[in-house]
């Protein structure tokens, strides 16, 4: 049967196409929970995870922004949004898997003194604008992220210290050239610099151990 004949959400779809400012809110009110029920049936093992809520919310919000992408002659709006949310869940699961794999890899690097030394040497080398080929594939991959985070030789030296687990403020203050400041100002400057580096590394997917950045 043609879904257009039975779809109860077509009036809202039409209002979205006409850019009725209230339509997205009415849509969310009418359909969010229904889509969630369907998506939970597809992923029963994730029934209590926020990943489902977020995927359903994003599917509905995305459709409200671009209603013309939905073709009512092909399937019902509920089915369309369920499919869209299902795709978002799969993407989110994939991203989570990749993130976990990366964290495990970094843990391995952190736990291995030899690997740490090589990673540390590499950060130094990058800071000196030289190039080194790191043999072990995982280290190469993480090094690439670290490389991207280095914007100056000073960044390279600070990241090198962070990877080495250095925590003494005075060592960082030396590198930053702020040893002549009073101790409180040194601490503040070092913390600001480390926070900035940490954020940059996090954005690039290199989570540092909390102890390395405090």
């Amino acid at each position: 049967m043609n879904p257009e004949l039975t779809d109860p959400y077509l009036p809202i779809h039409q209002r979205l196409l006409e850019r009725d400012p209230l339509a997205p809110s009415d849509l969310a009110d009418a359909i969010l929970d229904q889509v969630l029920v369907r998506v939970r049936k597809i992923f029963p093992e994730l029934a209590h995870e926020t990943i489902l809520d977020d995927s359903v919310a994003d599917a509905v919000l995305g459709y409200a922004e671009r209603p013309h992408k939905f073709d009512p002659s092909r399937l019902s709006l509920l089915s369309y949004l369920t499919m869209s949310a299902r795709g978002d869940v799969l993407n989110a699961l994939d991203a989570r898997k990749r993130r976990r794999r990366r964290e495990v890899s970094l843990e391995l690097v952190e736990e291995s003194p030899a690997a740490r030394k090589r990673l540390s040497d590499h950060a130094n080398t990058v800071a000196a604008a030289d190039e080194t080929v790191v043999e072990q594939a995982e280290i190469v991959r993480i090094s690439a992220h670290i490389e991207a985070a280095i914007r100056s030789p000073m960044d390279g030296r600070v990241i090198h210290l962070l990877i080495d687990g250095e925590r003494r403020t005075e060592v960082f203050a030396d590198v930053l050239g702020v040893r002549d400041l009073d101790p409180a100002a040194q601490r503040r400057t070092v913390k600001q610099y480390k926070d900035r580096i940490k954020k940059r590394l996090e954005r690039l997917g290199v989570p540092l151990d909390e102890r390395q950045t405090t």
Partner: protein
Amino acid sequence: MNDKPPSRLLQRAAERTSERVFFLGSSLASFQEARGIDDSELARVLHCDQENLARLRLCRRPDVDGAAFQVEVRAIAERFHASDLSLAQLLREVAAIDAMREAGQPRTAGFLMAARERRRPRRGRHRDSQ
């Protein structure tokens, strides 16, 4: 209007509008950030019930430069028992903030005051000069 309290999922969706410029929620979030205010204060600014904020955030954001701006603001305000004047003022302020931000200026409270000043009609100055 749906008189039921918003579901947990509706609240979640409303929160996620803060990063999507299509939705009114993005403007409300910018306004809250610039003023440093929470939801109860935002509801007070808009003269509406705090419970209506989630559904309000999920509306399409009226374009301050669009021909239908006033009509759309009035429709939204009427539906959620909010002040249309306050909502229109809020949207204009946020538009001014966005314009100044694009020009590279920060979003501080003082900056918001400057943005308001910039958009305020200059009746006082006109009177002074008479």
